[in-house]
Each structure stands twice: as structure tokens, then as C-alpha cells.
């Protein structure tokens, strides 16, 4: 790749990108993406997982080299060699995993690893610049000598931003900055970022949270399947039109019709389920033939509820029964004996067996069913594996491929293969079933879930994606900080009240009162 000189940019354009492309092993991650950013602009980048957002950011920061395309900073084309070079050009990244050294002071962290710092960084000039950066962010009252370990996650993020400002970054890139922050911290981050904009600097803001996009950003760029879908002023979008731009299809096509009147009897009944330190007194009814969603943010305890029901939490207690039969908690094998199957949100380490073949994965939980005196017949297993894979929509040609070579969507389907062809309908517990899965496979998985429903399975899923909750759930339970907030069914399932419940439950209780 050779740097092609680009014509002079319009005044105030800090970043100008043309035709950026990148492929991994022949599979394009980003195709011909062009992008420009003005000084003092806050730009959101939205897109599904796998849309190419992180590839885009990594190329801006010189972490990966583009196959084609040009990046011009302040009108000068540059081939960004590495992170240091990117920083020297005025690009700064606040990554999802913060990169601060917890045992050093704020001041040390601000200058840690900076190319312009001499051997000793304790000069008055550097201290002055660090203090100025903190002041810009409205946190001049923080002591520079304070250890970072004493700060909250949100405060650390502000230190990261100060660090970039002290190094005179012109473009700040934030990758999912609010995923682990509390509401108050998010509000402060928004204030800080507006202050950054008022300095004439630009921000690239990557987030799944549409509320923040509409609240904070001036404009939005949508990436879809590695391609640029649309860029426009935030004001020109509605929530729905932005989602549809991300999905590339209308919302109605995404979700299959909900459950009609059910002819199935029984189901999973949970009364006063407790896990010390995580959640208290959760009661849920999951009748067969329906999809129950537990909605809650990270830390609400929602994902721990399904884990506890799957037998994966040893100190769980409560009254749980399947079709009236009591279930012993804390034992996965007891849950499996009741045909309770768990699908994790941590697919890579707890879901699929990545080093093994699709076939091995498909039959993993059925080896006993198809062995005679401990012996298995490989042709028979192959036949069964192929059939199971086909039923969840995985092509037979993948049968001997290593599971790690599959897309996230196919990996997830492979986990779902455990639930098909059971002698009796079971109970499916799913945490974030479509996390990291592209749009097409997502729709497949939703259809798969509905087909389980129709076959008389009881389904419980947790999700932090409210679109999905509203689109899929027959019944919704909302959770906040280890407590159940409310239960909604049918037409009562609506995004605003669910959002209020999981973020500000007191407000919604008042509204209900």
C-alpha cells in the first residue's frame, strides 16, 4: 500500500478516510469505507457486532494495517505504523479495557509511555500540562498524586481521557465507554465529552446504547457487514430508523410471531431463588410454550438467575420445580436429568469446544445415548451429528471443521443443537443468546427459539438488548441490582417501562403507584 496524496480538505476537517479495506484470510472485515470528521464534532459509530467497528478503530490506531485505502489526519495522508505514531498524529483511543497502571499516581499514568517524556517526567511543565488537562475535564480538584487504584471505573476513564488531552490528542476514540459504568458516571462522562468538543477537539464514540448516541452525538455513521451503510446528522434519525440502518432490514422481519394460546402444560416454577451476594428472592414462572425474558443491566443478577437454575452456582437456594418435580440446585447433572439445558453468554470458554470438530460438539452431550456398553459407532455418530447440525441450520460441509473456524452465529447454533431431538421437550436457559452474532444468524436463532417454544419447551433468556427483549418475550421480568422489579406480559411489554425498570426502578415504582 502506498500513501496516495489526497487533495486538501475543507477547512476544519481533522480526519479524512478513503476506501479503507481489510480482509482476514480472504474474509472481508471492512470494505471500502470512507469517513470524514470535522473539528469539534462528536461522531457515533454504530453497527452490529461484526460490522467492522473494531477493525476500523484498530486501523486508525495503527494496530492493524489496512489492505487498501488512505487515512489523512489534518489534511496530510499518513500510513499509521503503530499506536505511538497514531498518538503523535493526534489520535487517541480509550479502549474497553482501560490501560492504566493501578499502583501509580494519576500524574504518572498521564505520562506513562509517552514519546515526548524524557527519562524523568517530574518536570513542572509536564505537571502543568497534566493539571490543565484535568481542568479541561472539570476535575481540577482531583489530586494528581492520587493512586489510580483508589478511583472508580468511571473516574479511571476520565483519567484516560485526560491522558489523551495532555498529549494533545485532536481526535478521541472511545470504544464502548459506558458498558461498565453506573448511571451517574455515564452522566459525568457525557459532560466531560461535551467539554472536549467545546475545546474544538473531535470525538469518535462507539456504542451499542442508542440513548447515548441521541443524547451526546452530533452525527452518526452506521457500519453494516463491514461496509459503510449511512452517515447523517443524529437529528435526521429516529430510534427505529437507526436500528433498521444497522440491521439492514425492517424490525418486523427480525422477530417471528409471538406465542399464541398454549396447549402445553407444566413448565419451570421458581420460588424465592437466592444466591448470596448476587440476587435475592427471585420468583419466576416459565410455562412451556413461552419465552420468558429476564431483562437487566450488567450487575443486575439476571444472568446469575439462569446459571443458578442450570445448577452452575453451588450456593444457590430456593424452591425450583419442573412440571411439579422438585429440582436440586447446585448440580448441573440434576438439571440435565430434567432436560434443563444452559446456553452461556461466554460462548468461547463455556459454550463450544473450540478445538474440536463441529461433529464432536454436536454429539458432545449425547455420547451416552448413542453408545453400547461404552462403545460408540463412529458412522452412527457421524450420521446423528450431521442430522443435528442440519436441524439447527449448519451445512454438512462444516461437519469436520474445527468449531473455532465457524462464525459466532454458527457456533451458537451448534450449542443449540444440544436442545433438538430430545425424547421430551426440555427447558432452555439462555444468557444473551445473540451476543456477538450477525444479523442473519440472529434471525435464524430467533426462529429456532420459537420452534422450541412450539415443541413445548420452556425458554428463559436474559438479555441486555431491549430490542430483543421486546421482540421475543411473551413474558418479561425486570431486574435491578439483585432484585426483581416487575413482570410484564403481552401488550404490557414495552421498551420505555422496561428501560426505566432496569435503570431507575424507583421512578417506575412511583409511576406504578
Amino acid at each position, binding site marked *: 500500500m502506498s500513501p496516495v496524496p489526497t487533495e486538501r480538505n475543507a477547512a476544519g476537517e481533522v480526519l479524512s478516510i478513503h476506501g479503507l479495506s481489510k480482509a482476514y484470510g480472504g474474509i472481508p472485515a471492512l470494505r471500502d469505507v470512507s469517513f470524514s470528521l470535522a473539528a469539534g464534532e462528536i461522531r457515533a459509530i454504530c453497527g452490529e457486532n461484526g460490522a467492522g467497528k473494531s477493525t476500523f478503530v484498530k486501523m486508525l490506531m495503527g494496530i492493524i494495517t489496512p489492505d487498501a485505502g488512505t487515512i489523512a489526519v489534518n489534511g496530510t495522508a499518513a500510513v499509521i505504523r503503530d499506536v505511538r505514531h497514531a498518538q503523535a498524529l493526534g489520535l487517541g483511543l480509550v479502549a474497553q479495557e482501560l490501560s492504566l497502571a493501578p499502583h501509580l499516581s494519576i500524574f504518572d499514568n498521564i505520562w506513562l509511555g509517552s514519546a515526548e517524556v524524557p527519562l524523568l517526567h517530574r518536570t513542572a511543565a509536564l505537571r502543568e500540562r497534566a493539571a490543565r488537562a484535568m481542568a479541561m475535564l472539570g476535575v481540577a480538584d482531583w489530586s494528581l498524586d492520587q493512586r489510580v487504584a483508589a478511583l472508580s471505573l468511571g473516574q479511571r476513564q476520565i483519567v484516560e481521557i485526560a491522558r489523551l488531552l495532555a498529549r494533545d490528542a485532536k481526535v478521541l476514540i472511545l470504544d464502548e465507554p459506558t458498558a461498565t459504568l453506573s448511571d451517574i458516571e455515564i452522566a459525568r462522562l457525557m459532560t466531560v465529552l461535551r467539554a472536549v468538543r467545546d475545546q474544538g477537539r473531535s470525538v469518535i464514540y462507539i456504542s451499542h446504547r442508542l440513548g447515548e448516541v441521541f443524547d451526546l452525538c452530533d452525527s452518526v455513521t452506521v457500519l453494516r457487514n463491514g461496509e459503510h451503510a449511512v452517515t447523517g446528522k443524529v437529528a435526521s434519525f429516529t430510534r427505529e430508523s437507526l436500528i433498521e440502518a444497522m440491521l439492514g432490514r425492517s424490525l418486523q422481519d427480525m422477530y417471528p410471531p409471538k406465542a399464541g394460546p398454549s396447549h402445553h402444560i407444566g413448565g419451570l416454577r421458581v420460588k424465592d431463588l437466592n444466591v448470596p451476594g448476587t440476587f435475592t428472592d427471585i420468583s419466576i414462572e416459565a410455562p412451556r410454550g413461552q419465552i420468558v425474558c429476564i431483562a437487566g443491566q450488567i450487575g443486575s443478577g439476571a444472568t446469575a438467575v439462569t446459571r443458578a437454575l442450570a445448577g452452575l452456582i453451588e450456593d444457590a437456594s430456593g424452591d425450583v420445580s419442573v412440571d411439579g418435580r422438585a429440582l436440586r440446585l447446585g448440580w448441573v447433572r440434576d438439571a440435565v436429568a430434567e432436560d434443563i439445558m*444452559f446456553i452461556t453468554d461466554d460462548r468461547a*470458554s463455556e*459454550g463450544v469446544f473450540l*478445538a474440536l470438530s463441529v461433529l464432536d460438539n454436536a454429539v458432545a452431550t449425547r455420547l451416552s445415548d448413542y453408545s453400547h456398553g461404552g*462403545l460408540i459407532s463412529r458412522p452412527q455418530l457421524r450420521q446423528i451429528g450431521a442430522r443435528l447440525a442440519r436441524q439447527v441450520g449448519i451445512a454438512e460441509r462444516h461437519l469436520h471443521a474445527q468449531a473455532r473456524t465457524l462464525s459466532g452465529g454458527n457456533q451458537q447454533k451448534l450449542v443449540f443443537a444440544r436442545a433438538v431431538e430430545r425424547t421430551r421437550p426440555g427447558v432452555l436457559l439462555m444468557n444473551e443468546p445473540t451476543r456477538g452474532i450477525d444479523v442473519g444468524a440472529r434471525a435464524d436463532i430467533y426462529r429456532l427459539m420459537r420452534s422450541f417454544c412450539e415443541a413445548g419447551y420452556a425458554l428463559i433468556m436474559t438479555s441486555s438488548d431491549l430490542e430483543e427483549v421486546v421482540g421475543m418475550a411473551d413474558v418479561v421480568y425486570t431486574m435491578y441490582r439483585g432484585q426483581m422489579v416487575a413482570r410484564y406480559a403481552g401488550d404490557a411489554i414495552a421498551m420505555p417501562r422496561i428501560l426505566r425498570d432496569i435503570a431507575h426502578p424507583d421512578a417506575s415504582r412511583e409511576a406504578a403507584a
Partner: protein
Amino acid sequence: MSEAQNMLWTTLPAAAERLSGIRAWAASRRAAARGGTVAGLVALLAVIALFTPGAFAGPAILSFLTSISFIGCVAIGMTLITISGNMMSFSLGATTAGSALVYVAALNHYGFWFAVVFALAFGALMSVAQGALIALARANPIIVSISTAVLFYGAAQPATKGDTFYPSVAQPDWIQAQLLGIPAAFVAFVGVLLLGQALLTFTAFGRRIFLVGNSVPAARAAGLNVPLTLLGVYAWAGLFAAVAGLMLATHYNRGSIDFGTGYDYSAIAAVLVGGTPLSGGEGSAWRTFAGVLIIGAVQVLLLLHGFRQEWQYLITGIIVLAVIVLNTRGRG
């Protein structure tokens, strides 16, 4: 095989020219699977053997087949442990020695068949006890195995008063017999090899070893019986080590605490050289068989060239390190 040789001979000079060549070589090497390393080593050894007087003489071959059989049985057991995700055990050599002692001691009191059963049971139990600590108490497998080995030598020294045990009763003649000129020990090793590979390929237990070895959290979440699988793995590993002990005891007509010394390391070397990765969830007894042949051939060739025992350790160590470096490059 030819691909591997081509790779070695045609790309090495190029790699010396340009650094990027080395990277390309490493990448293509990885793509050509671990078989490449094995094939390359076998070819190299064959060339060396051709220029070694006496390498293809009858007695040398027979002694080679016998000596690799002892280590081979231990290595097949080690393979199960490695595939199960527990990396390696340093107590299989001690299990071998213990089984040999138990065999000879029991032989003198209870007769041949009881002695065989006792020795095998001893090996399996000694190993299962470790499996229990690892599977149920979630102890570190390497630490457990080292502690067990130390514990064994500490207890066996006073128990045997440092003596070697000799059989005082007759053993069946067939244990020293040759099958069509093949030493009995090698026949037994091939039996262990086939049994080990059959376990891995044709039993539900064997498939579970791969699943558990690839990811314990995933196996647990899927409801597989992880502890039982690991207990099984250690039982078989101990049993195979005990077979090595029996073979040593009958071959040398005694039982000694020194039997099995260094077998742990040679077995680990054979597993790794064969291409079963330490990360677990992958591998086969066949690969280990190839590894055993290579490690055994290196040791015999060194011996024929008049190098002393220490050199064998040195060269084995270098080979293991080289294989580990080649197989992990670019993967991390």
C-alpha cells in the same frame, strides 16, 4: 512427508536471507500440521541411522524395540493425561517402579496371576488417588504428581530397605518368549498402544477426554461428568504405567525402586514430539507412538555412537524444547 522435507530443505536458506521468510516458514509449518515436525525428524534420524554401523543389525533392533516398549507404555498413559487437559504427570515413573516391586513381592507369596492383578491394581489406584485430588479438589495436576512421586520414593525407600526384590518362584515361560521374533515387551506395548487409541476413538469415555481436555467450563456447563472422566484418565494412565512395571520386572527378573527413573521425562518428550499439544483436547496415541520411535531412536543412535547416558538427556531435552518452540510459534 515430502512436503515437510521440501519445506525444511528449500525454505531454510531463504529464511536465513530474510526475516520475513522465517515468519512465512513458521506459518506454513503450522498449516502443514504437526506431522511435519515428526516427518522431518524421522527422515533426519533415518539418514543418521544409515551412517551408523550396527544400527540395522538384529540385536540392535531387538534391543531398540524392547527399550522403547517400557517408555512407550508410560507415554500412552501420559497421552491420555495430556489430552485431558492436565498437561503431564511426574509420578508415572514412580508408578512403574511401584508396580514392579508389588509384582515381585506378590509373586513370591501369591503366585503369578495374583501378582499381575495386584501390580495393575496398585498402578491404577496410585494414579486414581491423584486423579481424585485433581478432579474433586481441583488441585494443580503437576504439583500433585510431583508430590506423589516424592511421597512414593520417601515411603518406598524404608519399605524396601533399599533392597532390590528378586522373584523366588518360577514365572511362566511365555513372558520372555518372542512372537515371530518380536520381543514380548514390544507385543505388550503394541497392545497398550492399540487399547489406548481404541479408548480415545471408539468409546464415549474417550470422546469425553477430548471434550473435558478442550474446555472444563464448557464440559461442566454441558452437564458432562468431568470428575468421572478425569478419574478414568488417571486410572488408565496408572494401569499402563503398571504394565511397564510388569514388563521391566519380568524382563530383568527383579523389582527395583530405580525402575522407571527418567521415564516421566522421556514419556513427556514422546508425547510432545509426537505432536499432542499441552493445551489439551487434541492428540492421539498414534502421534505418541511416532514420538516414542523418535525419542527411542535418538537414544539408541547416541548409544551406538558411544555417547554416554548424560548426552541422551541433553539431546532429548534439546529436541523437546525445539518441538515446543516450533509448535507454539505464532499461536500465542
